[in-house]
């Protein structure tokens, strides 16, 4: 089995990562995790920062081209998209960003990792790792699994990382650089060695014996999983069998929703929406999967025309190759949408690269998917239906109802609302759409961007990876209840 770890664990497990050898590694890891409590978390952040810097150099040096090509063929994303994904890694590993994230996530901030932090007159918090953490990644982007791994390591957890089939090569590449930092006899090198001995990256196919053992039997503190069904249910089921009762940290599957107000800057909104459609081929949980245009139908058609122009401009830079069956579904879906009354905006040669459908008041996608049950989210890459609605309350209704609709089967709720509106209208609409159940309401042009202080799907990820120890001193403390 393909795996990577630090020198001390490698010496323990030998050449093969098996159920037996991983138990040795876990025993070592749990012990080491305990010993590291109180270590300077800032040092771990500096190691991650250096890793990010080296990753940047790796990308800039041109050595990453072969990797990009392979990731592109594994994921279906174009080279440019894969490069963009890999470029975000350096930002993700930035010490300042991680510090900001931990400070806003942990009660008592970053300091609570190193010792007790006063939170009341006689009350104190301290965060200690809840691990070992097993993080199971899925999907194409390298970022989700790396976000979890980085957060788990930064909070001092012994961390097992299982990337997905399509992103594993990049994940292994990142961690192999950690080993290089550890080769250096510097304080940073020493911290990197320690960190690499807190970590195992391995790849085993879903349903494999080791993965099953780790979820169902091993002494794991947290199981973190990003992904959708059927894997989501399988992971939940397996973890529920574990007598150690690990904490479940689940993320996804969610969807994004775009909203364009009649008074928005159409030019800017069109560019933003086109980018959100092109980036990651709408396969992120924040990607727009439907849009509402608040205004009349003619305005909506005009807006869609603008988005179409942007998509046409961007496509050569972000090419997409769709499999023949996906095209087959798409071409029939286009006919069905037209037959149901939608107006389509398409590439000039009718190619399958992108499709915009404009519908009045109600979505025509439901009827389309009713006729073509395979035309689900994964087959609707660079496809968007824009529904012209009268006002914000129509949008609210649509966002609330989205998870119950057949075209969005498997989506639990809307994660991100990308809103294009004037400042005043933005505030009014955001205030209204807070009732929609969406976790994020942000400008349309930033749908795919995260601030380090942002929670993940309504909660702070770092909190999933720590236990909060509470101390209350007797003198002047709270009275009993």
């Amino acid at each position, binding site marked *: 089995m393909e795996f990577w770890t630090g020198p001390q664990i490698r010496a323990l497990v030998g050449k093969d990562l098996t159920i037996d050898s991983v138990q040795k590694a876990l025993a070592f890891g749990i012990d080491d995790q305990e010993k590291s409590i109180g270590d300077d978390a800032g040092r771990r952040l500096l190691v991650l920062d250096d890793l990010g810097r080296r990753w940047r150099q790796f990308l800039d040096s041109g050595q990453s081209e072969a990797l990009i090509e392979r990731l592109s063929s594994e994921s279906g994303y174009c080279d440019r998209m894969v490069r963009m994904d890999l470029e975000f890694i350096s930002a993700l590993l930035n010490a300042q960003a991680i510090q900001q994230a931990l400070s806003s996530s942990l009660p008592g901030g970053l300091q609570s990792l190193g010792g007790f932090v006063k939170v009341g007159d006689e009350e104190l918090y301290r965060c200690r790792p809840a691990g070992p953490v097993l993080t199971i990644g899925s*999907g194409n982007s390298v970022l989700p699994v790396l976000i979890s791994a980085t957060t788990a390591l930064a909070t001092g957890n012994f961390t097992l990382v299982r990337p997905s089939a399509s992103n594993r090569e990049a994940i292994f590449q990142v961690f192999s650089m950690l080993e290089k930092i550890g080769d250096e006899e510097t304080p940073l090198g020493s911290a990197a060695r320690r960190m690499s001995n807190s970590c195992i990256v391995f790849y085993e196919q879903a349903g494999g014996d080791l993965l099953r053992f780790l979820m169902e039997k091993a002494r794991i503190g947290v199981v973190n999983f990003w992904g959708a069904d059927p894997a989501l249910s399988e992971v939940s089921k397996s973890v529920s069998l574990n007598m150690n009762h690990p904490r479940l940290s689940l993320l996804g599957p969610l969807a994004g929703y775009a909203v364009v107000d009649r008074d928005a800057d159409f030019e800017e909104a069109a560019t933003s929406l086109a980018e959100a459609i092109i980036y990651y081929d709408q396969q992120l949980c924040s990607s727009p999967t439907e849009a509402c245009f608040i205004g009349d139908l003619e305005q909506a058609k005009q807006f869609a025309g603008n988005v179409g122009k942007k998509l046409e401009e961007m496509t050569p830079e972000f090419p997409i190759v769709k499999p023949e069956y996906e095209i087959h579904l798409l071409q029939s879906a286009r006919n069905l949408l037209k037959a149901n009354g939608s107006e389509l905006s398409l590439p000039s040669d009718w190619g399958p690269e992108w499709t915009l459908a404009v519908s009045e008041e109600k979505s025509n996608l439901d009827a389309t998917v009713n006729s073509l049950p395979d035309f689900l989210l994964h087959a609707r890459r660079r496809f968007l239906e824009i529904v012209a609605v009268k006002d914000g309350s129509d949008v609210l209704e649509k966002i609330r109802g989205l998870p119950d609709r057949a075209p969005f089967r498997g989506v639990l709720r809307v994660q991100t609302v990308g809103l294009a509106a004037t400042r005043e209208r933005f505030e009014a609409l955001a205030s209204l759409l807070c009732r929609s159940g969406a976790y994020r309401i942000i400008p349309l042009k930033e749908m795919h961007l995260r601030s380090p202080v942002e929670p993940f799907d309504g909660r702070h990820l770092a909190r999933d990876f720590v236990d909060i120890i509470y101390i209350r001193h007797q003198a002047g403390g709270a009275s009993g209840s």
Partner: protein
Amino acid sequence: MVDHSNDPYVQRILDLAADRSLFEKSPDQLLSLRKSLFRDLLSFLSTHSSHYRTMFERLRVDPKSADLQEDLPKVILSADTLRGEAWKSLVIDGVEQGGLVFSSSGTTQKEPVRIYRSPTDLEVMTRANTNLFEFVYGDVLKDGVALFMAAPELKDRLNFVAFVDMCLNRERIELIYGMKLLKGEGAPWSRLVQDRSKIVKFFKSRKEPKLFFTAPAGVFLVCKNFEEMSPLKRQLGRLIAGAPPVALRKQGVVVTGGGSKGIVEVPEYGALVKMASKHFLAQDREGARVPAPFMDVYGCTETLTAILSRFGSHGGLPHPLQHVFLVDPRTYKPLKESDGEGVLGFLDLHNTSFLGAFYPGDIFRSHESNLFYGQEFSFVRRLQASEGWSLQRACGGALEELMSRGT
């Protein structure tokens, strides 16, 4: 209830389905006929169905001036749209009752494709397919005996079985079903077993011609079985069953349809025919011994008339009233040249219950032909649904980027 069977359009289709002279017309004459029938069909559908009326309006297709080449691509759909009970919303208002609902085998784990054939459609299907079959066969069907490697219970459910059954019954050709459907649960195709006594009856029959209908896999399994026989077993076989070889007698023919049925060793068609030439024998019109001719049928649940080819003679020929065309697999724009490869689309003008225009989901090759259709078609492969793409949307997260504000 409206009786559509007396509608002039339906009557015309019934007449045309029986018209053998269509096969003597030129490709241009037939195309012109199809163009005019396309308009008539759209008008008929528009008159008898609010669904189609609304649809044509939205697509800005005027039945009176509709153009076959320009407007057909707007209304054609994937056959996937026929899964489940979707056919119910596609048939015209007050559709003629008493027909049959045909279904695909359901081997793809998806809901089967289902389609309704009214009594008129069934009559049209029988007439048109018989005429096409006779053209390709090169003679009129009469007398003789046929072995069909299917079970009789399937004739009310599977399009191809129904069409063979109806055609042969109409021509009073004795039809022997070579398979039995076992009782029990599960898909019918998984409960089919050979009925050896019926097969032997066919082998021993002295009637002629003898027609053998089966999948290519069936031919292959018979050949393989014969080749593995010891000399003694062969002699015994000849004595008891009258084979090997299978004597199809004067004007006998093997008619294949369907694919390999999951049997991976089935050779490509030319090699299969060569393999079969030792085991299936026939005589020509004059009585000279020849390797059995092979005809192949392309058809699916959604096709009312088949595309028939004759090995060594010509490729697939549609019925004159079935408009068959290929589209570019990327843009789904019709190919301009007669010679090319693309996704097959068809409009079967014989349908009087709904708009029979579908992409079955197959890649075909076409080339120019001197025969009535002007083009011949050959099956290349089925469109593949790529594995793994459905896993793509599982990344669950959004990008993390250091943004200076919001901290």
